[in-house]
């Protein structure tokens, strides 16, 4: 596959400023972030002809949401739901829809209020779950299995896992909106309560209310807007399922999506200036680094320990907003929040303390559902220039 010039760019972006939203509804949040992203693009509701939204998991259909927003001119809709990676997939779909001439201004939005729910959302309704002998595998226990296997195969240490949280927190201290806007020490991570061996409370992302939206637009719309865009240079998606019991817990799907997205963009891992890596747990970042090809399999632990994730010291800063580990993980889905920081980096809008100089290429990688069972993977390559 030869690289081609991008036909679509992210020209509007907006992150809900709150992390706890006691008033209103999820639909209100979606409206707030959608209008925010459109305003950032210099566009209006009447310009939107593509709508990308997954809300059925919280009882909010794409159709009802389109009606609530007032989207009356749609020619393309997409409610792809692959868990936390959904919007990363959807942005790729939006670029394809624009390339196919199916729409010109695509709105991609998400949000939720998990802190306001009386009970946890229902889970375990997957096709095979009823045949899995009632094993009590919580989300964190599943990722703990992946972490244990990584430590066993590669000698990864507990301290190396903790350094992922420390790096996120050193970024988050520059983000006053972050849920945890302060530096965390290695000792604080290692002393936090053990939840499921080896993962401790501070290995987990935050849970937040909130949301975000982006506007993906055709090249002529971007050029007319006069706004800086993050061009969608490459993208790819896949699933890494249990495969009848032949799953490899060291693979997260990025071993497929990374090479495909890089090929479309015509670049390689060494050309990437910034990466937003899904960080539901500390171990999630280690697998993304390896599977995307930023290091060899098993080498992510030492890489992280060397400070490779840090904006101040590294050639590949990761999650400079504080990531899901410290900043924001609205609706228990990190794909949008990770995308928004990559867009800031490309546009030069990140906090000065963490802004990457001359950020030409950024990668976003989303990991959905569970790396321990069925996982989704979606990778975007964003560029400051269209080609």
């Amino acid at each position, binding site marked *: 596959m030869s690289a081609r010039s991008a036909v679509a760019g992210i020209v509007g972006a907006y992150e809900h400023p709150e992390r706890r939203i006691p008033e209103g509804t999820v639909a209100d949040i979606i409206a707030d972030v959608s209008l925010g992203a459109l305003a950032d693009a210099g566009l209006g509701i009447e310009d939107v002809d593509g709508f990308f939204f997954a809300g059925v998991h919280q009882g909010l259909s794409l159709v009802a949401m389109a009606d609530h927003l007032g989207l009356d001119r749609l020619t393309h809709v997409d409610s792809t739901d692959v868990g936390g990676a959904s919007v990363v997939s959807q942005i790729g779909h939006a670029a394809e829809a624009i390339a196919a001439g199916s729409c010109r201004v695509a709105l991609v939005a998400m949000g939720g209020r998990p802190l306001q729910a009386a009970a*946890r959302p229902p889970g375990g309704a997957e096709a*095979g779950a009823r*045949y*899995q*002998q*009632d*094993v*009590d*595998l*919580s989300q*964190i*226990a599943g990722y*703990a*299995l*992946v972490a*244990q*296997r990584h430590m*066993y195969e590669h000698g990864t240490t507990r301290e190396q896992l903790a350094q992922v949280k420390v790096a996120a927190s050193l970024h988050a201290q520059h983000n006053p909106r972050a849920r945890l806007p302060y530096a965390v020490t290695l000792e604080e991570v290692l002393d936090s309560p*053990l*939840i*499921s*061996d*080896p*993962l401790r409370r501070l290995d987990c992302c935050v849970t937040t209310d909130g949301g975000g939206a982006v506007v993906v637009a055709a090249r002529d719309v971007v050029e007319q807007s006069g706004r800086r865009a993050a061009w969608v240079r490459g993208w790819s998606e896949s699933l890494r399922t*249990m*495969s*009848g*019991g*032949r*799953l490899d*817990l060291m693979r997260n799907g990025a071993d497929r999506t990374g090479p495909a997205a890089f090929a479309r963009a015509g670049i390689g891992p060494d050309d990437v200036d910034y990466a937003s890596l899904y960080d539901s747990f500390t171990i999630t970042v280690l697998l993304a680094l390896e599977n995307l090809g930023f290091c060899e399999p098993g080498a992510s632990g030492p890489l992280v320990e060397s400070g490779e994730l840090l904006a101040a010291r590294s050639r590949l800063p990761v999650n400079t907003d504080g990531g899901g580990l410290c900043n924001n993980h609205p609706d228990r889905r990190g794909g949008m929040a990770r995308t928004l920081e990559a867009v800031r980096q490309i546009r030069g809008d990140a906090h000065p303390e963490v802004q990457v100089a001359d950020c030409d290429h950024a990668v976003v990688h989303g990991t959905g559902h569970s790396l*321990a*069972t069925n996982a989704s993977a979606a990778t975007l390559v964003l560029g400051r220039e269209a080609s």
Partner: protein
Amino acid sequence: MTDERITPAQLDAALEAELEAGRIPLMRCEACGAAFWHPRAHCPGCGARRVAFFAPSGPARVYAATVNRRPRGGDRDAAPVQVGYVEFPEGVRMLVTLGFPDGAPRIGAEVAPEAGGPGEPRLVFRPVAGD
């Protein structure tokens, strides 16, 4: 052409019988020979409908394990639960409840299923002597 597919009710009944007998609920495709887990009425490898439970050819070893100290939706008062994947010689990995008496499941250890006690799943994989 005869319809050889297993109905959902037949699969449920067969799985129930396997668990009741304390057997490992692994399945194999009678068309392509692939072993698989979780149980289902078709082969995830080739799509054939001729599938059946079978006994693995050798012992299970722990592939990954954790002790979940917040089981049952995060209940702080619940006893810790050992969960993990075990691997069979056929290359298939199965998500199971583990039962290491010392509370510390070990990757690589050989384990065998036993009937679970009160409050436990019906199959609990415990370490065999010497491992």
